[in-house]
């Protein structure tokens, strides 16, 4: 004969099954494993490290002044709300950036900031350093980002 305890445990099992039944019946559910937020610190050489994004390899030629001039206009329109050329503001100053980073990294940070601040060890550290102020994706083209990089070379 069943005891009250048995009944309760059966109900609990049923409840569990019911929930699974509901969840299991839904279409389009996949088991996805998201990456852990916290990852052990990776040591990278910032003068070798290219970041994550569309720019894999970039050889810099002699300074193109027309490009740099166009880059300055773009920079003033899309970037100056958070960056000042020579001093730390909402974000870091781009002056002498190529003494600290590779050109690929700079362009990837402009073009792919969301993924960079999530995955790239240098960008992640910067996000913390700047109190979580996100690098806004201004949806520039690769050509526009390249011109801004050229302008940075003049600073």
């Amino acid at each position: 004969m069943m005891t009250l305890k048995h009944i309760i445990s059966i109900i609990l099992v049923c409840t569990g099954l019911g929930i699974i039944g509901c969840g299991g019946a839904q279409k389009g559910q996949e088991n996805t494993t998201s990456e852990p937020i916290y990852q052990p610190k990776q040591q990278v050489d910032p003068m070798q490290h290219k970041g994550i994004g569309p720019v894999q390899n970039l050889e810099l030629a002699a300074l193109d002044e027309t490009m740099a001039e166009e880059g300055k206009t773009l920079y003033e329109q899309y970037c100056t709300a958070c960056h000042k050329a020579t001093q730390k503001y909402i974000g870091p100053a781009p002056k002498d950036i190529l003494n600290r980073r590779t050109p690929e990294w700079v362009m990837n940070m402009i073009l792919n900031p969301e993924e960079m601040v999530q995955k790239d060890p240098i960008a992640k550290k910067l996000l913390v350093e700047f109190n979580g102020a996100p690098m806004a994706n201004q949806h520039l083209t690769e050509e526009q980002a390249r011109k801004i990089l050229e302008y940075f070379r003049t600073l």
Partner: protein
Amino acid sequence: MNLRFHSTFFLMLFASLMWQSCGHQSSTGQGKGLVGSNAASKVYVAPGEHDEFYAFLSGGFSGQVSVYGLPSGRLLKVIPVFSVDAEKAYGFNEETKPLLNTTHGFIPWDDAHHPELSQTKGVPDGRWLFINGNNTPRVARIDLSTFETVETIEIPNSGGNHSSPFTTENTEYIVAGTRFSVPFPQKDVAIGTYKENFKGALTYIKVAPEDGQMSIAFQILVPGYDYDLAHSGKGKSHGWTFFTTYNAEQSHTLKEVNASQYDKDYIAAVNWKKAEEYLAQGKYQEFPTAYYRNHYSEESHMATSEKIEKVKVLVPSECPGLIYYLPTPKSPHGVDVDPSGEYIVGNGKLSADMSVHSFDKMQKAIANEAFEKEIDGIPVLKYEEVLAGIVKEPGLGPLHTEFDGKGNAYTTFFISSEVVKWKLGTWEVLDRAPCYYSVGHLMIPGGDSKKPWGKYLVALNKITKDRYLPTGPEMNHSAQLYDISGDKMELILDFPTIGEPHYAQAIPADIVKPKSKKIYELGANKHPHAAKSEKEARVERNGNEIHVYMTTIRSHFAPDNIEGIKVGDKVYFHVTNLEQDWDVPHGFSVLGARTSELLIMPGQTETLLWEPRKEGVYPFYCTDFCSALHQEMQGYIRVSARNQNVPLKWGTGEQPES
């Protein structure tokens, strides 16, 4: 009873509860509608997945349009159209105020009735959505790349814009027939002189094919009846529009009784291609009038108003062949044209049967001059000569009909509270489904077009009562979703709506989704007060007008400290959102604003007028949680007495000197 029996009973009860909770069924009350066991899976759209259809429901007395996903019934957006909306600053910011301008002044509310999608070749094309305002007669146009109201136009000589805005096959025109006849043109007369002085106006609004801009092409002066609903022809009947009338009695008091005397009223059939010929020949009269057209420019992010003072009017007695009356029992409400363009369904709301007219027979009757009589130059065709068939006693109080593209029609019956499915051509009733409660309009995606997507039907009900958890005396109206893919209609979902949804329209998501804008390009922003970089941020004084050119980006304002404002100044905050990323709006609100907040989309400029009444220092802040530093997105504005000489100063990141 032994415990074993008890435990079995418990388990069965529990299993049934679990099953019902999975199926989202109502487990209380009676007469809630039979719901099949697979209803839940038919309306289930998994988290992160998208609905199959966009549905646009009129907000009725809310004045707005609500956008739902089907089949889930998810509310996607409420688009402000005819009523102010403090959430979106619609009608509160300087940019959108002109959209509500009329010859009666700034009108902050209307009664929105019939959403209508633009069409190309008789099929909804997903470019624009039109909707009529009934109370202060207007039509609005919503751009479906931004889901924003971009134009409103006032309808002159109209006393209630109800039979509107139903489109022609290629959106050549949308129409606006007056529900209440009024003196034409308006003048001060005794109401008792109705029959002598009151007239109806059927208005045709031209829609520019490239950008959708609306302009009144012409009006037709018609007898003073009540022009209730309309639909334009399609296919073979392209070039015609059909308007229902009631109150052919021309009563002006106790219409409940006095406008329901005659056995038949009329469907007015207008040959608008003929109207174009008469216009080209100059056979119109130009009447002095006044109406507003208000247009919002996506480039300047501003609306402007234009007052127009003439209208072209066609008079039927001077324009033979322009318009005919089709006798239709009795006080017909909706008039609906089947996908082939042949059948014109009159939903005679006080009639036991439903009369369906034939376009071919109508053409023949016109050719043979089979006229019963003439009213003010409008020939009345003989009822029997235009009748295609009668749906016998299908229900009580027919209001509206839509089509599934498979030869079936679906009609709503308000009094018997049901949708009835019947067959075109044989007029036999095939199925009926109860509605909860008292259905008005119904909607099948594309159901008034040449190509219905006949998978779902939405019943838009007038009475809610016990459908949902009670919320006091006032509650939202209910809508019900039916699966109509099989022989039998199947109720699969029930959801509350905004305001009173009269009509609705729906379109496959794939037509609209790819064109949906994510941001406004900052480079293309031509707002006269835009600050397109922080360098342009500034404050200017012009007499007692202050213009603050402000920018936002995560997460600060420039400027965020402002001094030198005086009590009595009119302070215009022109706020430009410098973000160029999807879904990064910034809000702006300032203490004591007697307007609303601003909610500025990426790349957009909006202007808030602030008129401080007391000296002090007031905070302003961002209202839309924008980043981890959102709480820090805040500034101060200092207001001094009129006689103080505090210099105008502004800045971000530096303290203004005091």
